[in-house]
């Protein structure tokens, strides 16, 4: 069989993929056709994908009460999208700052920006595997609206909290290397602090 001849039908390829006819002339002929026919290659790739789906272990349905609860949309507004032009802020080795504890490998930010002043410490994971990030944000211009603080990894918002001008926040969570902390200010601007160890 060659590409100029008729393409074998789907049913023939199903049997071929299943390994039928091992060692026969027909099978060799099909294999040879496959080598030079992109259309039939697509057919067989589709069938191989079906076989692959079978390998997935049996899925288990959650208990009904869990399922029912999850299917109700969580309360509260969804959080902001990824900022398009965040201002990146660098960490420095931790120092002592009033009211904020530090650990040996901690990093901190204590800086003034046009929009806000930051005093934040990031304490790396110990046995619990959890980063602890705590601090305060002071707005340069008084604003009664909340600042949203998000711990983010890729497109996962791992944890979030809200803090008002001068208020204290803390986040503690398990997060992989490469996380970032986003401070969404009421003005719409975002300050971003990236994982100091990444």
């Amino acid at each position, binding site marked *: 069989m060659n590409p100029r001849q008729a393409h074998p039908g789907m049913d023939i390829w199903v049997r071929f993929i299943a390994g039928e006819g091992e060692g026969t002339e027909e099978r060799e002929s099909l294999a040879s056709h496959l080598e030079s026919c992109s259309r039939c290659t697509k057919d067989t790739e*589709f069938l191989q994908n079906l076989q*692959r789906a079978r390998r997935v272990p049996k899925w288990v*349905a959650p208990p009904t009460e*869990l399922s029912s609860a999850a299917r109700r949309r969580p309360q509260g507004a969804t*959080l902001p999208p990824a900022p398009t032009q965040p201002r990146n802020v660098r960490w420095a080795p931790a120092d002592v700052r009033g009211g904020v504890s530090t650990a040996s490998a901690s990093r901190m930010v204590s800086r003034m920006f046009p929009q806000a002043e930051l005093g934040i410490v990031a304490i790396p994971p110990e046995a619990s595997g959890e980063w602890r990030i705590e601090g305060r944000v002071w707005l340069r211009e008084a604003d009664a609206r909340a600042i949203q603080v998000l711990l983010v*990894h890729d497109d996962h918002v791992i944890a979030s909290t809200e803090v008002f001008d001068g208020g204290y926040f803390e986040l503690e969570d398990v997060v992989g290397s490469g996380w970032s902390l986003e401070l969404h200010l009421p003005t719409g601007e975002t300050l971003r602090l990236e994982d100091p160890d990444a």
Partner: protein
Amino acid sequence: MSGASQPLRDSTGTLRSPRPTTNRQVSNRATPPVCSQCPSALPVPLTRPKRLPSTEELSDQKLLGQCADGDERSWTLLVARYENLVYSEALKVGLNEEDAGDVFQQVWLELHRSLPRIRNATGLPRWLIVATRRLSYKVAARGRRMVPSITREMVDPASLPDEELQDVETRMRLEQALDELGGSCAELLRMLFLQPKKQSYEDISDRTGLAIGSIGPTRSRCLLRLRKILEAIS
């Protein structure tokens, strides 16, 4: 034919995500009409009622967008589509049922928080597995559970085995396409391709009422229809 009056049972049991209004559930109650595009050997249940959204309308992309806009029904559909995957993954990594339940709830909260920033909707199964594995580690660590299979490595998304993930994504797309295909064709293909153990032609013939000789040609026609749907989804 037995399949006409007694719709085939769900051959995959809990393998399938429950859908609030599946094509199958609606269509199997109806009287089979004649369908010129469908395999003649099989009874063909009614096509979906017009109000039921198509796969395209129910794509992850659309559901995610509508969820981010606050649409309740889209949220329900999205959770229904993936809840088996999330819960099974939490059990698979070694958690007990109680901890798996905690993780299950936290995954959906994380998804809700993250809705506006999920850029790649086609990667949603991966997104959910990554979240489930990290949260499984967290629940085990906080509860001081000694689960040998749960390691710090699970927090890193890169530790997720690509091959396993591809299998899951393939399976999800296939389930979606089979729901779109619906009717007896979908049931036949589920029996042929999604059962953990291969079914003999005799078994399939017994359950579908198809003559053994017509299973092959019917399978071919159903596969071609399925492939068209999969191409549209992709």
